[in-house]
């Protein structure tokens, strides 16, 4: 035999030279998204740090894969738990964008569904319905809001279980095709995961959204007003702080959502205040300023005064 036996190809074709992580980071444009996150989302420290971790892992994985050091796609299914109005949906939207930038999902769209979209009304209706939703979510992120409604332990013939089983199958076998995010209130999600251990173990990231502090809520209010092209007069600023402190103590407080509603009502009052004195010229300044009186007219202050009496 005279054939020359070729040496086996080197296991590491790119050598072991230093790799440019910085260049990869800049190239992925993930910095923009993370900065945007820092700018637009106030508070939420544990959430942001977890997103940073995931972004770092995906970048390093990308770098490793250029060396042929593939570790398989990491499972990125998540659960977002937290009280109402803590920004779960907002973060999910961002998440779709981040994962798209990092090349983890191919399209980066978000499909938001609830129980109604997944569970059918009669036997044999659930599976096609769930598959339809999964088909739409392929290449992006499937966001299941109030996921605990999927499982109704009080009714053993409930079709929710069937939807969960199909979800599980796809989450396991097609994890490079989509990311599933479950969201809901903390206690109910805990029971949900407790009664579906298979689901809990396939969700790699359990992220808890903390309630906002008073200062954070005020910062959120300022951000919202800025986006709506309004501003607070100095007095109104103090009034809003008092309002937030009072409102936090009351039932049905929904964090940022309550703040948004309060601001919407303040806008209504500002509009009718300006409308009252029609005839007089109105300046641009007046149009964009919310006064303390607009906020102090709130039911929250009225109730407080009633208590004091």
């Amino acid at each position, binding site marked *: 035999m005279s054939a020359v036996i070729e040496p086996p190809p080197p296991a590491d074709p790119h050598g072991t030279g230093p790799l440019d992580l910085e260049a990869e980071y800049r190239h992925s444009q993930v910095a923009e998204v993370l900065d945007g996150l820092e700018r637009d989302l106030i508070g939420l420290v544990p959430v942001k740090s977890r997103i940073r971790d995931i972004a770092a892992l995906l970048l390093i994985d990308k770098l490793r894969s250029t060396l042929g050091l593939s570790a398989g796609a990491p499972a990125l299914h998540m659960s977002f738990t937290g009280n109402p109005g803590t920004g779960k949906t907002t973060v999910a939207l961002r998440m779709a964008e981040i994962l798209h930038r990092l090349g983890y999902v191919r399209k980066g769209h978000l499909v938001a569904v609830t129980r109604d979209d997944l569970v059918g009304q009669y036997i044999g209706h659930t599976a*096609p319905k769930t598959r339809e939703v999964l088909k739409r979510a*392929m290449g992006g992120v499937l966001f299941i809001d109030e996921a605990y409604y999927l499982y109704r332990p009080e009714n053993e013939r409930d079709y929710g279980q069937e939807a969960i089983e199909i979800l599980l199958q796809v989450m396991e076998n097609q994890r490079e095709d989509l990311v599933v995010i479950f969201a809901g209130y903390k206690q109910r999600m805990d029971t949900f995961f407790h009664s579906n251990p298979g689901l809990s173990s396939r969700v790699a990231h359990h992220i808890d959204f903390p309630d906002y502090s008073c200062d954070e809520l005020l910062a959120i209010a300022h951000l919202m007003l800025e986006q709506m092209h309004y501003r607070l007069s100095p007095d109104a600023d103090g009034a809003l702080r008092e309002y937030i402190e009072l409102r936090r103590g009351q039932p049905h407080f929904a964090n940022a959502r309550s703040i948004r509603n309060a601001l919407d009502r303040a806008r209504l009052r500002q509009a009718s205040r300006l409308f009252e004195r029609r005839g007089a010229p109105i300046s641009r300044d007046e149009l964009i300023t919310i006064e303390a009186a607009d906020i102090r007219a709130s039911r929250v202050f009225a109730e407080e005064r009633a208590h004091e009496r």
Partner: protein
Amino acid sequence: MRITQGTFSFLPELSDEQISRQIEYSLEQGWAVSIEYTDDPHPRNTYWEMFGMPMFDIRDAAGIMGELASCRKTFPNHYIKVNAFDATRGRESLRLSFIVNRPPREPGFALVRQEGPGRALRYTTRAYAADRPEGERYSGP
């Protein structure tokens, strides 16, 4: 005899990756993709049975490839084609259609002669497979 119908039909069979790339292109153009099957190979048989619903608002080929996999599982010995429908006003028709699955053995067509008045002869073709009833045409030996 290998049936040639639709786009790419003179090329070797497309691999799954190539099919997925074609679907990806169709979705990028905004066309709605659907899957159809039949076991009647006659060239004039243009209306095949649709497998499931036409798939609107799908963003990624993975969703359609999943549906195709389940169609192949249900009809392993049928012809299956992928259609891309363009709903643009004024166009409203198929833009792309290609065969993605075919029976392992395609027996081909017989030439049928019919004697007309005088010495006239009419010719037509008939698929050997069409001798058997629908659904059993390609299953046997």
